[in-house]
């Protein structure tokens, strides 16, 4: 699946400003960013739940944006979405097995009994067996509801799942279980996954590659482990250093960014990050850095970064190591 240039304008707001991304078959790509970065908008454009103003969304080589409604509906069985809110995304008046069976009615020829059986299989696959199938959503916990959402998304046997903050609404102790479930399903079913998340621990657990977004643009991409251990863009460095680490012995100095992300109504000149960037220089305000390939650790060109001075902002942990 490949996306071309996407620009979405409502008035003068560019929610996405020239985004190019690829997700390979069976791969998990994480879109990471904070509020206003455009990651949710991008996720929805990918499934054509939102109409981009320009660009293309290629799924298996076919541009979804060019399809008429009927053809689009038929294609939809191949990509599905798991939503953030496990409470709001399930019909409170339907029993769980009926919620999961609904996509089967739309996309398959199975009869009623066949749908019911398949729904139960799917629920078992996500760890919700037995009598839970007959319950209503309000009779389940948050984690269970999220599993129902996943089972429903898997019903049409899609090749791609878009998961928008799949564990953010869940208690911390339940998150690990749902993440493990997603990881396991990916392996078993060979699913591609577009994971939208601000939770870097979830990203590390699931993603093969990461794209970091800021104010509607992709500012850095790379393989997960490498991007997290050797971030190149100053925003990525700051983001990683801001994540609290559950180890009091490692209370490290953080890069605490000043101010807040600018409003997309009035984006800064040049690089959108320059007003908050600890290493900004005059060129950064004048020119917008393109997303350019950068060499990975092993010399392969798997990384890209939109910065004139990539890799120059050292992570605080590293600074401390050098001092001692």
């Amino acid at each position: 699946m490949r996306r071309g240039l996407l620009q979405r304008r409502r008035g003068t707001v560019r929610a996405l400003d020239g985004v190019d991304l690829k997700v390979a078959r069976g791969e998990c790509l994480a879109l990471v960013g904070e509020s206003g970065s455009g990651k949710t908008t991008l996720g929805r454009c990918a499934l054509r739940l939102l109409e981009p103003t320009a660009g293309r969304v290629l799924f298996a080589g076919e541009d979804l944006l060019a399809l008429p409604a009927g053809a689009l509906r038929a294609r939809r069985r191949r990509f599905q979405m798991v939503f953030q809110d496990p409470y709001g995304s399930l019909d409170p008046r339907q029993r769980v097995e009926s919620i999961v069976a609904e996509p089967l009615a739309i996309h398959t020829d199975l009869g009623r009994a066949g749908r019911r059986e398949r729904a139960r299989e799917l629920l078992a696959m996500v760890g919700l067996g037995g009598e839970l199938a007959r319950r209503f959503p309000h009779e389940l916990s948050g984690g269970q509801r999220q599993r129902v959402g996943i089972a429903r998304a898997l019903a049409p046997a899609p090749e791609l799942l878009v998961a928008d903050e799949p564990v953010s609404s869940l208690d911390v102790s339940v998150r690990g279980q749902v993440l493990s479930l997603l990881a396991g399903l990916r392996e078993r079913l060979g699913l591609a996954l577009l994971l939208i998340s601000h939770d870097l621990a979830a990203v590390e657990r699931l993603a093969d590659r990461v794209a970091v977004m800021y104010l509607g643009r992709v500012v850095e991409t790379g393989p997960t482990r490498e991007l997290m251990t050797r971030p190149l863009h100053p925003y990525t460095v700051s983001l990683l250093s801001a994540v609290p680490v559950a180890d009091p012995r490692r209370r490290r100095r953080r890069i605490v960014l000043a101010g807040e992300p600018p409003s997309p109504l009035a984006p800064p000149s040049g690089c959108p990050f320059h007003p908050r960037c600890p290493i900004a220089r005059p060129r950064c305000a004048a020119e917008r850095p393109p997303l350019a390939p950068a060499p990975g650790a092993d010399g392969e060109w798997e990384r890209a970064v939109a910065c004139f001075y990539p890799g120059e902002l050292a992570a605080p942990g590293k600074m401390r190591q050098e001092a001692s």
Partner: protein
Amino acid sequence: MALLEIRDLEIAFPARDAGEGWLPVVRGASLSVGRGEVVGLVGESGSGKTLTALAVLGLVPPPGRVTAGAIRLSEEGGGAADLLALPPGALRRVRGARIAMVFQEPATAFNPVYSIGFQIAEAARAHRRISRGEARREAARLLDRVAFPEARRRLDDYPHQLSGGQRQRAMIAMALAGRPDLLLADEPTTALDVTLQAQILELLDELRRDLGLAVLLITHDLGVVAETCDRVVVMREGRVVETAEVEELFRAPAHPYTRELLAALPRLEAVP
């Protein structure tokens, strides 16, 4: 002597069917906060941590009630007052002036039809005899203190005109207006992006150092606890199951539930 001491607190709600008595949702909870100390109160949804904090200020939502226990706040001249036994007038003098609270959702803490400057000034005047002009200046000073951008210019802004991070700072400014010794912070950064969270936590740390402010930080995020707290209290299903210094809690958790919580954390391994 500790600044705040909660002893054997019990909070109950009436059972749904009349005649079945009261169902305790917090049982035998005890914890203390020393002057200038940051204590983390950790637990999952339903553990009772928020209710415990609300009980300190007499804010347990009806029909819930505190049914047993004592909450002692040490007084200026020595000795301590039992907050649960205070008459309403005296409790009002404690709220804001000695103990203040900030919440997860700053949008609900502010009155939407008054400007933030007005509300912070009002909070200052509720606890000190100062003129309106002086209170307004104090509001601007407080907003500066919490690194609220362009404080003077934005005193007359309304809550809906602020971003999430700005509202959170304004709420902290309002909480500080009465010059409290203790701040109860209920999930103050949970709704914020991680870089904003880092800013707010750093702010709380500064306030602790500069003002000697003690903080009871309620959170489900053990990462936040590790980075900011001196001591930790773990609650589960209404009871305190473990209390420890922060390093010890992470190094050698005593209670199986604490171990479960720590083990369940999706951890960020790669960050150096």
